[in-house]
């Protein structure tokens, strides 16, 4: 499938790389010659240097033959015009990255057409939404929701004094007959493994588990974790992500404290927000953080535009006793560092956006999907088709690719966490978890 990506910034680069590795024909249009050159040498795709909103450029990129257009430059207008042009050429799916709420909240006539775009996506907002989810699922480093929120996938750690520490998964299964959660992956010493019944959980393990939402408490108890409600939230950095997040928190009735370095931005924030407290100061100003009661917060997110500041501020916050700290990191290279230095979770705009976009790229049978921040594994929710290899089989006879595991089965309104003898029927909605190497094969398995 031919895919045209306009703009090779944070989001565009990641998407292009991802799609190219999925064996798609990717053409990138980038205005900056340096960036264009760098992509050409690093990735196996075609780069066209020029303006993504220009007809000639898009034609050069083969927009006539393209099935997909991802317009993800930093400029809303360029993205929207690119979509508008693409819609004239009958491109099947047009995705535009849009930051200005005026464009996606428009009413009336514009609402219908959306400038020809099928999907308007706002990376900052996606990020904010993800951080909010992490706030609500305490102790989790990754969160994804499926089946309208009835099934959750969480990244959690095994505590030292956890009731399940030292036990194999089979033993845990025997001890707790009612199985409401399933361990789908374990990260240990930088490696990701799909566990078997003999795998032992040891303290310090980062595990991924699939659970029914209303049985999460039990899972938390077994892992020695505490689940707490958030009331007091502090945001370090009032950029686009900070502002979006603060707004979402306000809607939920939480009054966040927002710390921002630029005086002008502070004024803007104060004007935009209603109940939030806006502070002018540095995110790494120890005195100020203590003064404003950092240790009494239930959640803290470091969301400045600088990765380094976010890491440092998160460390400081942890040091000062903030119980739950989430960092915004643009560079995914830093993400593995996060759990090692004690920060609870990290979120990156690339991955958040990629999550949303890839789901659409993969086509209709994938209902939703999520990419894990930490190890790039993917969880996909999909419908089992009548003629597929899986239909009518028991789980133990499935012969899933190694590196993939079935997380949950939903039939009608009922959700079950599968056992070996659970039978898969056509029409079931399943959540399947796959490590990076197995993603391609897994997706084909259910086709």
């Amino acid at each position, binding site marked *: 499938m031919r895919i045209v990506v306009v703009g090779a910034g944070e989001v565009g680069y990641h998407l292009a790389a991802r799609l190219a590795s999925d064996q798609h024909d990717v053409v990138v249009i980038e205005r900056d010659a340096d960036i264009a050159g760098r992509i050409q040498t690093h990735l196996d795709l075609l780069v066209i240097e020029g303006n993504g909103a220009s007809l000639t450029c898009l034609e050069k990129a083969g927009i006539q033959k393209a099935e997909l257009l991802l317009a993800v430059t930093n400029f809303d207008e360029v993205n929207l015009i690119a979509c508008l042009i693409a819609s004239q050429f009958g491109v099947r799916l047009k995705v535009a990255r849009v930051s200005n709420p005026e464009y996606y909240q428009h009413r009336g006539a514009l609402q219908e057409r959306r400038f020809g775009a099928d999907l308007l996506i706002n990376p900052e907002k996606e990020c904010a939404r993800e951080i909010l989810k992490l706030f609500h699922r305490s102790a989790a480093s990754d969160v994804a929701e499926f089946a309208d929120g009835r099934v959750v996938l969480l990244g959690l750690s095994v505590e030292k004094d956890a009731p399940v520490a030292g036990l194999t998964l089979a033993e845990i299964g025997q001890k707790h007959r009612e199985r409401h959660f399933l361990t789908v992956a374990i990260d240990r010493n930088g490696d990701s493994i799909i566990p078997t019944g003999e795998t032992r959980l040891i303290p310090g393990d980062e595990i991924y588990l699939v659970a029914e939402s209303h049985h999460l408490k039990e899972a938390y108890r077994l892992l020695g974790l505490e689940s707490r409600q958030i009331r007091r939230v502090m945001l370090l950095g009032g950029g686009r992500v900070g502002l979006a997040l603060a707004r979402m928190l306000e809607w939920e009735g939480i009054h966040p404290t927002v710390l*921002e370095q630029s005086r002008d931005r502070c004024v803007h924030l*104060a*004007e935009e927000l*209603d109940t939030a*407290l*806006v*502070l002018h100061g540095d995110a790494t100003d120890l005195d*100020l953080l203590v003064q*404003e009661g950092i240790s009494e917060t239930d959640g803290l997110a470091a969301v400045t535009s600088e990765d380094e500041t976010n890491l440092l501020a998160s460390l400081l916050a942890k040091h000062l006793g903030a119980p739950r700290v989430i960092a915004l990191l643009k560079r995914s290279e830093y993400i593995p560092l996060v759990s090692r230095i004690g920060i609870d979770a990290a979120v990156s705009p690339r991955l958040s956006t990629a999550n949303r976009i890839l789901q659409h790229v993969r086509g209709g049978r994938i209902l939703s999907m999520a990419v894990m921040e930490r190890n790039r594994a993917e969880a996909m929710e999909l419908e089992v088709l009548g003629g597929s290899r899986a239909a009518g089989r028991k789980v133990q006879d499935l012969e899933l690719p190694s590196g993939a595991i079935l997380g949950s089965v939903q039939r009608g309104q009922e959700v079950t966490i599968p056992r070996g003898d659970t039978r898969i029927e056509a029409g079931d909605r399943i959540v399947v978890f796959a490590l990076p190497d197995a993603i391609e094969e897994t997706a084909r398995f259910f086709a």
Partner: protein
Amino acid sequence: MQGRVVLNVVAILTAFSGVTMLVPAAASLLLGEEAAVHILAASGLTVAAGTLVYGRTRPIEEITIRDAFAIVTCGWVAVAAFGTLPYLLTGSIPSFTDAFFETMSGLTTTGSSVVRDIDLLPRGVVLWRSQTQWMGGMGIIVLSVAILPLLGVGGMQLLQAEIPGLTQDRLRPRVRQTATLLWVVYALLTAVQSLLLTVGGMTLFEAVNHSFTTMATGGFSTENASLGAFESPFIQYVVAAFMLLAGINFTLHYSVLSGNWRAAVRNRELRLYLAIAGVSTVLLTLLLYVPVPAYGLEASFRAGLFQAISIQTTSGYVTADYATWLPAAQVILFLLMLIGGCTGSTAGSVKVLRYMLVAKEARISLRKLLHPQGVFAYKVDGRVVSADALASVSGFLLLYLTALAAGVLALALFGLDVATAAGAAATTLGNVGPGFGRVGPTGTFAGLPGGSLWVMSFLMLLGRLEIFTVLILFTRGYWRR
């Protein structure tokens, strides 16, 4: 400042006010009064004076901000000065000082009067008296901009100097259209009220006069006992309702009339305004009913409601002698005098929005103590109020209180007793009407020392033009190039 330009526009305004005198002249003529001739003469003199000056001055090319302040202030003084002619020529009020006070009280919609017995005045003069309030209510300049084509240039500057409210919403792209729209809404409400009052049993003359002075929140009546002369509860309720409406921002009236109810429902100032009126009504009702239950609950409620609204909207009608009420009730009325209606209404005094903003500022100062590095925005109805606007509100409040204090002191120097001086200063500065003590609900301003009447005339003008426009003429910076 371009003196000739100022004179030119003032001349137009004067001539225009002379033309409006034809209305009472015609009414007088219809009623077969002798005074018709005198009012006609007053009209002729005013128009002649205006035209004469107009012919000798340069027509406007461009109005600067400086000119605008001078034009508005001088315009008001000139119109008030010539407005005395109907009183003087008919002999209704023989002294110029008294007549000037009466006209200024009319134009500024104050409603304080030096007339001891209204029944002795020719009806034409009574109508002129009410009409000055009606014209002053929405603003002489606004009216002129709406009607006279020659004031299109620089009209906005003039408008801003005359209604320096905080919400300068232009309803339409052109100044003239905005001004016309405001007057249409104003006239419409006046007409509806006249109709209702006629239904309630007033004669057409009484109905029109009272509607003129209600919508302007003026308070002049055709009767010596004010609205108290009309026993009908219906009439009192109608007047109370329309006073309340007149105290609301006319932009909101326009919104509602054009189908946008939400704007009104969401408006915070309106909500607070209604809340203040509601709470004071309840308090006054209790203070009237509890000590004298024999008075009746409905009657107590009606008296409390009417007086609270009348004073808060700075109308100044009276249906009861509140001087005989409990001290607490009188204090409530005095406080209402210092609050006033909504911005953009015909009501005077400080106005609710200013208090809202100052209260907000105070709250933010408190929060700032807790969070020294906090950054806060001042928002009203989701719209940000600039720091400049806020500073001007604080400045206004200070100047208002200073003017009040200076006024009380000046009046006391003329020998007025404390209650009278305080009441008279507050009532004239706030454009309310009746005060306390000698100038209470049953008294008049007649017989007060001439000097004190000039002081009060000045206070009325100061209050009506919201201080800044007048005061700026007395600053050194204004005259320096």
